[in-house]
């Protein structure tokens, strides 16, 4: 049998303080970049407006196109190369009733670049109302998935506290119903209210029922989403619907790793807790599952990198977000979820609740 590393015994947990700091620094940089850039760079899906992608036969400079746009009477626009110097992406903010932007622009391009034929590869127009709705939907989708994961982890790991699970499930349903109300769906303000209240209540539930695993899992997930968004912001990338789809996929995927480690911890703890402190036990668990973790992460990573290189421009934002999220997901299991677990146990732990009831895989 070819094996990656026989009986690994690396030091993981010992350096966790440094790794957490690194995470915090990264997130800090991200927030800084957001402040500097005036917020997240939203795509037209969320801001409304138009995006036109043109492919010219010969190279073209953005400045020429900006001229054309000015001449066509556009006031708020952005022109960039897209892929190579023959492709351009034009983003526009339109005022009310400016529906025929394309015709006007095409006329001007005809005047300024007569010898350079082009095709319209893509032309998207999102009205302001739809933009707001999509924004709300995206936020709620993220909320739904996080709540879903909370419920799932609770059932899976905190089943000893039956009442706690029940409360979580009921609360989860409540949040989901409220968020589907029109009032919330159509307004930034109410969405944020719902999210804030939900977070507070969840934190309260976790404290009350000592949901240590759930806390660890959720913090890791939130970390993953934050890191992905921060890195994208630092790189100046746009946040649109496909990015949100990537975030949701990452949420579903990252929790897997975490569950594997938690399962193992539950298996090992009763055997070892008399001999080793918690952080040593966790280190051992990480080592035991190392082979499996590396391979599963690797296979998906390889596939995502292939997509990144060969998948084409259209899907690049999505694959980039997936890449960041996947790396973060694997990382967060070891350096976010478990330290949170350790911290929680030290602060709020009541003894030996880290035992298992289910058969681990």
């Amino acid at each position, binding site marked *: 049998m070819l094996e990656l590393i026989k009986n690994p015994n690396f030091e993981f947990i010992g350096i966790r303080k440094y790794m957490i700091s690194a995470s915090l620094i990264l997130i800090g940089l991200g927030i800084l970049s957001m402040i500097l850039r005036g917020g997240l760079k939203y795509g037209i899906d969320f801001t409304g407006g138009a995006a036109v992608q043109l492919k010219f036969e010969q190279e073209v400079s953005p400045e020429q196109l900006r001229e054309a746009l000015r001449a066509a009477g556009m006031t708020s626009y952005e022109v960039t190369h897209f892929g190579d110097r023959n492709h351009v992406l034009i983003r526009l903010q339109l005022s009310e009733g400016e529906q025929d932007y394309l015709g006007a622009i095409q006329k001007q391009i005809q005047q300024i670049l007569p010898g350079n034929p082009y095709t319209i*590869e893509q032309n998207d*127009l999102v009205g302001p109302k739809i933009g707001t709705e999509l924004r709300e939907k995206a936020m709620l989708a993220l909320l739904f998935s996080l709540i879903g994961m909370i419920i799932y982890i609770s059932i899976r790991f905190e089943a000893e506290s039956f009442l706690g699970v029940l409360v979580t499930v009921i609360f989860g349903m409540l949040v989901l119903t409220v968020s589907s109300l029109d009032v919330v769906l159509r307004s930034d303000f109410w969405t944020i209210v719902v999210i804030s209240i939900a977070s507070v209540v969840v934190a309260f539930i976790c404290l009350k029922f000592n949901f240590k695993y759930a806390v660890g899992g959720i913090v890791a997930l939130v970390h993953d989403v934050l890191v992905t968004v921060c890195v994208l912001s630092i790189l100046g990338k746009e946040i649109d*619907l496909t990015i949100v789809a990537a975030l949701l996929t990452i949420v*579903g*995927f990252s929790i*897997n790793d975490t569950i*594997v480690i938690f399962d193992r911890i539950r298996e090992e703890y009763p055997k070892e807790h008399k001999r080793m402190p918690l952080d040593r036990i966790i280190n051992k668990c990480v080592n035991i599952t190392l082979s499996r973790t590396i391979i599963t992460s690797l*296979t998906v990573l390889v596939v995502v990198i292939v997509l990144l290189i060969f998948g084409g421009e259209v899907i690049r934002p999505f694959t980039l977000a997936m890449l960041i999220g996947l790396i973060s997901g694997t990382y967060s299991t070891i350096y976010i979820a478990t330290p949170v677990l350790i911290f929680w146990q030290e602060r709020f732990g009541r003894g030996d609740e880290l035992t298992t009831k289910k058969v681990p*895989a």
Partner: protein
Amino acid sequence: MFSSMKFKIILTVAVIVGSLYYLWPTFYLSRMSPEKRRTMHLSDPQGLRELEERSIKLGLDLQGGMHLVLELDKSQMSMSADEEKDAIDRALEIIRTRVDQFGVSEPLIQKAGDERIIVELAGVIDTARARALVEQSAYLEFKLCKPQQQFLDILSRVDELIGEQNLYVVTEKKEGSGGTPSLAPADSEKKESFDPLKLFGENEAADSAAAVKAPADSAAKDSGAVKAAGQDTSGLEELLGTAGAADQSEKRPFGKLFFQAPWGQDTRRESELLVPVNNVPLVREYLNMPQIKQAVELAEVDNTVDYLPYRSQDEGDEPDTLEVLWGDDDTDYIGQDGTAYKRVFLMKKRPEMTGGYLANASATLGSGYDPKVANKPLVLMEMTGEGTDSFATISERFINRDLAIVLDKIVKFAPRIITRIPSGRAQIEGVPSMEKARDLAIVLRAGALPAPLQIAESRTIGPSLGADSIQSGKLSALIGLSLVVLFMLIYYKFGGLVANFALVLDMIITLAVLAGFNATLTLPGIAGLILTIGMAVDANVLIFERIREELRSGKTLRAAIDAGYDRAFSAILDGNLTTFLAAIVLFQFGTGPIKGFAVTLSIGLATSMFTAIYVTRVIFELWTQRKSVKSISL
């Protein structure tokens, strides 16, 4: 029984064969050259459509096209929720009629909630046309239909023209019919009533004249046909002055595509003709040729065909320009054998009246004692002041003629004028159902929407970008698959080989399921498929790692395999479950392409569980059953 080896093998093979069967149309269609496709579109559109329906649908972002979300512009005028709902219904009707013109196969037009309409047009990327689709106000016209006999005469003229100028359209000829394309109705042998009568060509049906309920002599008298009418419908051939059924179809390249409707007291008094759905593309092709188009339009003006005999008493002698219009899909006639026929009319181009003269229209049930009317669906029309006078004149001049209700150039209904109507209040009888009556009322009122429609969202993808995306997708899938396959072989050797087989099978089954459900493949969907490649392998990794552990702890080969599979199962389920959860959320909240991603991801994971757990185990059990196998390289 379920755990026996035989059953397992049979199930696996069945799944493989089934998948290949479902994938076949997609494969076949993708290999077809554009010319072959066009020929098939003309000669066998039904068959082509079937192939398309059973293939994987490509999303707009892959084949190019437009996605529009329409809503009413309420900025100028407020309206109640009910008014808005009604307006959207009317708008929907208008849009449906107009999209017809684009000739898109399977356009998607549906309401989204009570306030929005979604339109998807594959292959159309002209934004200007799309806006015209939406912004133009609906055009309702009332046009006079020309008598069927006149229509028949013009068909003959077109046949001659085609012969003279050699305008034949080449279509695939089927074997064994001696040069006659087999468009003859399959039911021409049957002597059933209510089957449309074929006009020209081999016509054994002519003998079943008795079944067709056509009284013999009416045509000549009423329409004043100059030609001698035969005593029965077998005289049709005589009517057109040719002998010998056999070479009819040769001489009637155009005419043979048409059928007559066999209902009513007198088949020749209804103005319409029928065209089997299969023949429609060919008829349109001919009608679009400039020579034929002109010949039809100016048939009266040039007097190439004598029209005076067809004039009603008060109609006058002035020649009219003519046009051929098609009936709405909803009004298709379905024959006994299930063939659908589209109605087609010859009519005077200039409308007798436009929608502006209509004040109101509503659907209702007839009252009173007249059996034709009582409790049958009716449509009541109310004209405006001017409209009343207009309509009085029209109903007097054209009594017993058919007046077509045309919305945006499509004939919605063509009732016969039975009496003079001086009061401006008319009722349309003979509406087949209450639903149709309601639709018709909507059509009549469609002339004026309370507020204009506007485009709330529009996404247009050019076909070149779509093709590029497909290419990139294929390339990524290939490379990704190869890398993963290579890795599995190196790291798990024989086990890797088995896992790779399962992986390839997974891909095939996933695609087959997509084809089977007629699901749409989008670009994110392709990404989802590729992600599945990476994730599917996880399951096998888990199983193999577990088996290795069991082997290390000293179990026998068979025992280790069994234990490995059993214990890995819950972990595999766990991992995939959370991804499923995320996919469900994505499906709920996502737009088209993202929904596609969620769907392919879910299907891919589900099938990967089947192939990774069930299929690989079958292979392992088969392999280790042989006594010579003591260990496997893993």
